[in-house]
């Protein structure tokens, strides 16, 4: 999601909500620092207790509860994305709400915890929260950059799911070329194939460097699972290698070399596309499961802490 002008209302609302949160926090815990006369609503006032707690106070509970419900809403985005035909608001609105409401949880969580991690339990939760928010911000950052890179560096994208097929096809073409470059030595007792095109001396001279290039460079590159480290993955190296190869082959073999070059170019493009797509979506592999874990722990935290508050107010 590109952060642009359309996010301005969301930003303002989040900012205002944060201001109100800070005001409530200051009025409850540091009333002397509030620069103007402000009194907490009666419902948010606690009976005095000797405990040095933030989350257990009514204001703290309000912050914690709000944060928890925002977590639940944020998780509901996953369901919303699966139920594409439900007319319950455009997914774009849901995603904006997901982003900005979870940003709003930063002050809520911070003030609920009193800016401290006092127990190992709350520390674990807080670290999970950091991971979730960190991956989320990383994802947003990727979405600002990667689509533009995809557009600029890949003049023609392919459907991501078809990349393995396209690679297989390129490899198959290269293997066919290798076969064509290898003169068949007929067995002494075999009948001559009338369809076989005999190799001329010029052909033999051209086929040799192509075969060598295929065996040493092109085929290993096309067979690699990740071709990033291969010299042919750099466009400059690749262009140079093919230019050099074309100089050593007869003109009638040039189209075949160009075909091979197209295969390598395609492989390079699909590698780049796959890499960028992994950057674009890979963070979700951490973000989603950790979010779910955080929600489960938050629920557990709420039950345990509320029980303590109720039993020993």
């Amino acid at each position: 999601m590109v952060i642009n002008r359309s996010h301005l209302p969301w930003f303002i609302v989040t900012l205002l909500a944060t201001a109100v949160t800070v005001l409530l926090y200051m009025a409850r815990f540091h009333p002397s620092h509030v620069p103007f006369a402000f009194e907490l609503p009666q419902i948010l006032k606690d009976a005095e207790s000797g405990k040095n707690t933030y989350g257990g106070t009514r204001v703290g509970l309000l912050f914690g509860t709000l944060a928890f419900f925002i977590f639940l809403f944020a998780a509901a985005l996953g369901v919303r994305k699966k139920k594409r035909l439900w007319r319950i608001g455009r997914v774009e609105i849901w995603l904006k709400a997901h982003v900005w409401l979870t940003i709003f949880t930063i002050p809520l969580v911070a003030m609920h915890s009193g800016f401290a991690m006092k127990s190992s339990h709350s520390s674990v939760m807080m670290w999970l929260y950091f991971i979730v928010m960190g991956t989320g911000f990383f994802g947003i950052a990727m979405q600002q950059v990667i689509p533009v890179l995809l557009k600029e560096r890949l003049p023609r994208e392919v459907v991501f799911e078809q990349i393995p097929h396209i690679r297989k096809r390129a490899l198959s073409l290269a293997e066919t070329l290798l076969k064509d470059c290898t003169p068949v030595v007929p067995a002494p007792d075999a009948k001559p194939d009338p369809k076989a095109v005999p190799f001329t001396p010029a052909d033999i001279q051209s086929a040799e460097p192509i075969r060598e290039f295929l065996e040493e460079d092109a085929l290993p590159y096309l067979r690699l699972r990740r071709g990033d480290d291969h010299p042919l993955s750099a466009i400059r190296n690749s262009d140079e290698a093919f230019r050099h190869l074309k100089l050593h082959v007869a003109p009638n073999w040039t189209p075949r070399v160009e075909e091979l070059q197209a295969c390598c170019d395609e492989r390079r493009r699909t590698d780049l596309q796959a890499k960028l797509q992994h950057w674009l979506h890979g963070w979700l592999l951490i973000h989603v499961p950790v979010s779910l874990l955080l929600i489960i722990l938050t629920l557990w935290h709420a039950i345990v802490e509320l029980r303590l508050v109720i039993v020993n107010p």
Partner: protein
Amino acid sequence: MEAPEKLTTGEPLTIEEMLKHLPALGEISMGLLKNYALGAAVLRRVSKGDIVCREGEFGSTAFYIVEGEVDIYIENPLAKVQSQRQGKGFFGFFKKITGLFGGGSSAGNEQNGFIAIDADVDLPKTKPLATLVAGDLFGEMTCRTFQPRSATVRAKGDCVMIETLRVILDMLLGTRDVDAETKASTKVKLPTFKGTSFKKAMDEKYRARSLSNHLSTVPLFATVGDEFLGYLRDRAELVSCGKGQIVCKQGDAADAFYLIRSGLVRVSQAMPGGEMVRTYLKRGEFFGEIGLLKNQPRNATCTALDAVDLVKINGDDFKVMLEKFPVVLESLTKVAEARIKADEERKPPPGLQLDDFLNQGLYEAQNLLLIDLDHCTRCDACVNACADAHDGVTRLIRDGLRYDHFMVPTACRSCRDPLCMTQCPVGSILRKESLEIIIEDWCIGCGKCAELCPYGNINMHSFDVIKEVAAEAAKPAAAAPAAAAKPATPPAKPASAPAAPAEAKPVAAAATVEPVKAPVEAKTAEPAPAKPVETVAKPAPAPAEAKPDATPAEPVKATEAKPAPAPAPAKKEEPKKAEPPKKMVKKKVSVQKATTCDLCTDLSVPSCVYACPHDAAKRVDPAQFFASGKHGKGWSFQKKSRTTH
């Protein structure tokens, strides 16, 4: 496609035999007849139940019935890929319950009306079946333009008919000014014929038997009474136009109102960047009313795309007619205002930069799906939403050319010049008021629209339907001989295709087919009895029983004029055993249908746009969108008003 020079199937006709069956050919000189007619017509004797031609097949001949009767019908089931997922689970149940009080869906309304075919008769949508009798001609459009057959024709009894190539039609009806392109591409060089009394006889027959019928099928005249139809019939002039002939020109004085009897008319307007096609009008539609109603010159040019027959009502008669029938005036005014409004809305805005915009055909588009590549995360939510909305068959492929920082994916563009609509033999592809191209249920799967779409945005999908077929036809071994029962032209479908229909088959097929994935409650209706009823004979307007609502289960007869009792052929004299009623069984069959983006027509926002989480997918009027100059990057980008939804 190239027409053969001679016909090789059937009984060759000598000149004398031709003159016997088609006396009007006597008006052509013997030299021309000998040079061009010999071999161009053959006599076909077909037995009861034989298929003369099948819908969707390509051909180059027309048929003239000499003796006997034939059923003409659309065999392909009336079904399509569902545009909306059927309700499932709790929400589905809730939807069904609320649907009971909601007055029904629009699907029911679509069942009204007629399907125009390549004969002087329309087929009711509710039961696409009619009967043609001796003296009727069918297949003229296929013969002239090589478009696929629009319907299946099956002999009701033993029949004799003449199958002809275009040259005979030209001799009888007159040459329809073949355009230069066709002339250059065809190997068969033909002289120009003026036509014979046959044409006049056909026109008179049409006027006497079918004009009232035809007029009553036009939605505009659907509510008027017999008196009005009689008035029109008496004053209408029957006009024929050749391919490329201009019927009326923009700027000319409006002097007549036209109703299309057959063929396709292109309506275009001159624009600063060239001619812009507004729409195509087909049989049953009309034009020329705006100039007459507003007393202004023609605001568009109407050109015959192929051989077009028109019913022309002169301006003076038209005005008298409107004075006498204010109901028609009211309807016409509404239509005219809607057309004027649509024209105004579609005018290109000033300031549009034309470069790749023209090269990529974007100017042709009226409602373009764009994907902003700076926003798109390639999550495919749009494609998945499209598939979800259309019963699992996506009509959007996230691949296509780029313009600026947008990708134009493979999805219908609602072109200004919808070429896809120009050659549909059954008129099942059409445009609705809000621009979307809709492929109606009676698509016969010929694939012509997919072939014509310059952007590859129409796809052919085979999908399974439950169809009632004769029990023996359900078995693969029995299907082959039945399917191969002396077809007049080679069957386009594979040998394993369902066999030729039984007596009541067309009705049953139309009524009893549903997509396999459709919910159970949309199930079958009982096959209707196939007793034919003769209707619509007198020059007076069509009686009520000819309308589909009144006789939904009975074939509509094109005419009551029965052929003179012909001497029965020898084989007919033999007593035939009464055929036992065939057992019908339900069978899953695969049918081809064309699919294209319908803009999720029942929804306020197309599903692809609604499901995009990144505001990357948008449906826009490209001319407005790109002319606004605000489509670039930056903070001014995201303005809702620029999108059409």
